[in-house]
């Protein structure tokens, strides 16, 4: 058996599995850069006021933050080539401060660009087929997808062709450029949800019906932020040929009925909540039936053309398990831990999926230095067909590594401080930038993540604790997904001090739930103690095979609350 497709195997180790711009894409992106350069010039000359300029800069992902501007670069469905990663590093060195922040929305944020430099940055991005369009504003944002797309053994279909199809449909969609609020779509094609589709405005789950036909389960009205909601099913099985028309119908219903009078009630989740999913479904179906669907008719050829970009790379045929891997694990315990925790099964025999943690103990979650970005680019070229992914957990994935190469890869990562074996464990914390960078923040979040990570720095203890999602946001906007953290932490201001509200029981997957509040807010110093008490209680109570969330679900929130109350009486002041 060979998995090598000779049509795509001419260049060994060349990235095959990404979408390449066609002439239309390239022209459109470079026109946008030129247009923005003109807008920046007009702003600097005073021809545009800040009020006039703000919408233009936001359309190009440029914000004004606490210490500087911030540029948000889209990484569509999280897929990057080595060349793109290197370019991100070069930009960080040339126009920023030597690092970048990978976010929960598969974006990269630069925290220090100068306004005057941003047109050059965008031009530099455009050269490697990247941009910052629709990373801000009330439009359809960067479409996100499962970071194990195309390689996960539990996958029905690679979600990226669908995501790319949607990106092309939604980019500069004139009808949906000024929605009541921003709009986020996530796609998964697997049996396990790694894209948090139930907490997006629209979540798409690729499914197969009884006759073997591929279609989509469409979920609408999920979201976090000030009012968190789990999405509801609006279409159980939408055939691929109807997908664009169906989504168009949803967006039209939202565009027509979504509230524009109140920014805080403008998201589609509020519409779904206020009207009820049945009424929304009826409205969508009516719109779908009445609209001229020909404009959105599925073009199977176009879908196939896009899908071809995501064809599998030229894998070798290998035995399912590697002898050298087994030997290296026995010889080097640190490597064995890394493999056990950060390496996952691949659908092709002899290969593995590697999660590179951007959460070193005590580090800033999601930050990577330009040097680290280059190491990752090199590693992907040496060991993974030059392809990388960004996960919504703020980590980097190398999706096609030969098991035989894992030890060499690990050595390379280890030398660059990128081999922390904590994927999915208590120190693999999602954290938004919080008050260290964000102008909307009410408290810091990064130092909280650092303190928890340091508290649990013993890696064997972390493995004993097992899978545990800790997620931290610096304000109610919930960019750090705290609502869906098994332990969620929300930074607030209370009487002029930073205060942290803790929630338990959140879950971002198909079994999604929103966390429940534990009690009154605590101070920054108390957070690691609280987390430790909760973890200890879980360890004392857990049954065989249970993760934190399972124990919490089985024994109930009240018991966890109780134990903390008792600790508080003991003088822990919680």
């Amino acid at each position, binding site marked *: 058996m060979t998995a090598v497709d000779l049509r795509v195997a001419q260049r060994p180790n060349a990235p095959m599995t990404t979408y390449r711009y066609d002439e239309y894409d390239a022209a459109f992106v470079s026109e946008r850069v030129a247009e923005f350069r003109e807008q920046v010039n007009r*702003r600097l000359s005073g021809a545009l006021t800040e009020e006039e300029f703000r919408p233009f800069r936001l359309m190009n992902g440029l914000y*004004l933050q606490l210490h500087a501007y911030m540029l948000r670069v889209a990484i569509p469905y999280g897929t990057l080539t080595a060349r793109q990663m290197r370019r991100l590093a070069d930009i960080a060195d040339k126009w920023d401060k030597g690092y970048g922040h990978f976010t929960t929305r598969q974006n990269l944020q630069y925290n220090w*660009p*100068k*306004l005057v430099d941003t047109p050059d940055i965008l031009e530099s991005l455009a050269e490697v087929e990247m941009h910052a369009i629709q990373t801000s504003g009330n439009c359809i944002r960067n479409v996100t997808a499962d970071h194990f797309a195309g390689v996960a053994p539990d996958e029905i279909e690679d979600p990226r062709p669908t995501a790319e199809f949607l990106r092309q449909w939604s980019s500069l969609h004139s009808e949906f450029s000024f929605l009541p609020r921003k709009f986020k779509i996530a796609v998964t094609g697997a049996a396990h949800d790694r894209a948090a589709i139930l907490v997006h405005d629209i979540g798409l789950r690729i499914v197969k019906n009884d006759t073997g036909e591929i279609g989509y389960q469409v979920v609408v009205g999920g979201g976090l932020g000030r009012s968190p909601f789990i999405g509801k099913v609006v279409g159980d099985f939408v055939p691929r040929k109807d997908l664009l028309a169906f989504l168009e119908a949803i967006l039209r219903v939202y565009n027509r009925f979504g509230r524009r009078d109140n920014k805080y009630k403008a998201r589609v989740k509020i519409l779904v909540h206020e009207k009820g999913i049945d009424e929304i479904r009826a409205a969508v179906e009516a719109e779908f039936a009445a609209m001229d669907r020909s404009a959105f008719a599925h073009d199977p050829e176009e879908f196939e053309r896009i899908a071809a970009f995501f064809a599998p790379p030229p894998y070798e045929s290998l035995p399912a398990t590697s002898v050298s891997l087994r030997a290296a694990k026995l010889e080097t315990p640190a490597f064995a831990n890394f493999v056990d925790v950060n390496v996952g099964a691949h659908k092709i025999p002899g290969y593995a999926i590697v999660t590179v943690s951007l959460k070193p103990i005590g580090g800033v979650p999601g930050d990577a230095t330009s040097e680290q970005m280059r190491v990752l680019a090199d590693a992907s070229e040496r060991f993974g067909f030059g392809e990388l992914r960004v996960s919504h957990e703020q980590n980097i994935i190398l999706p096609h590594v030969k098991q035989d190469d894992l030890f060499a890869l690990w050595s390379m990562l280890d030398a660059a401080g990128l081999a922390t074996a904590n994927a999915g464990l208590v120190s693999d914390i999602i954290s938004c930038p919080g008050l*260290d960078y964000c102008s909307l923040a009410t408290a*810091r979040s990064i130092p909280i993540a650092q303190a928890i990570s340091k508290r649990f720095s013993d890696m064997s203890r972390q493995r004993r604790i097992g899978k545990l999602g800790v997620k931290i946001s610096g304000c109610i906007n919930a960019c750090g997904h705290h609502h869906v953290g098994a332990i969620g932490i929300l930074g607030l201001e209370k009487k002029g001090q930073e205060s942290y509200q803790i929630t338990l029981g959140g879950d971002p997957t198909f079994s999604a739930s929103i966390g429940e509040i534990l009690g009154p807010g605590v101070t920054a110093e108390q957070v690691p103690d609280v987390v430790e008490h909760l973890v200890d209680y879980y360890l004392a109570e857990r049954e065989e095979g249970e993760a934190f969330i399972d124990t919490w679900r089985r024994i109930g929130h009240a018991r966890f609350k109780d134990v903390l109350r008792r600790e508080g009486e003991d003088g822990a002041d919680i």
Partner: protein
Amino acid sequence: MPVFKHPQILIASNLTDGEVVFLGPSGWERDHRRARVARKADEATALEDLGKRDISANRVVDVYLADVEIGSDGAPTPLHYREKMRVKGPSVRLDLGKQAGEGAL
């Protein structure tokens, strides 16, 4: 007349590079210790008017007054933790921002 509890300084972001700046005796300063301090409500209003002028002149954006306390050396320090952060830089990267000698400090 608004209640005037604390001395205030005027904070803004510099238009071209986004750096945090403070209105000083003769223009915008990158070091908050050189900020002009308003000790009465009418002085604060005067600072704000100067801020508005420089918004119109496209020098600065996002201009607002912040409460400060005056140290023994006469220099103002913001009272709120948000602005305390802005005069230094990120608390998690002491190698960046004004605290690291970038800008004026």
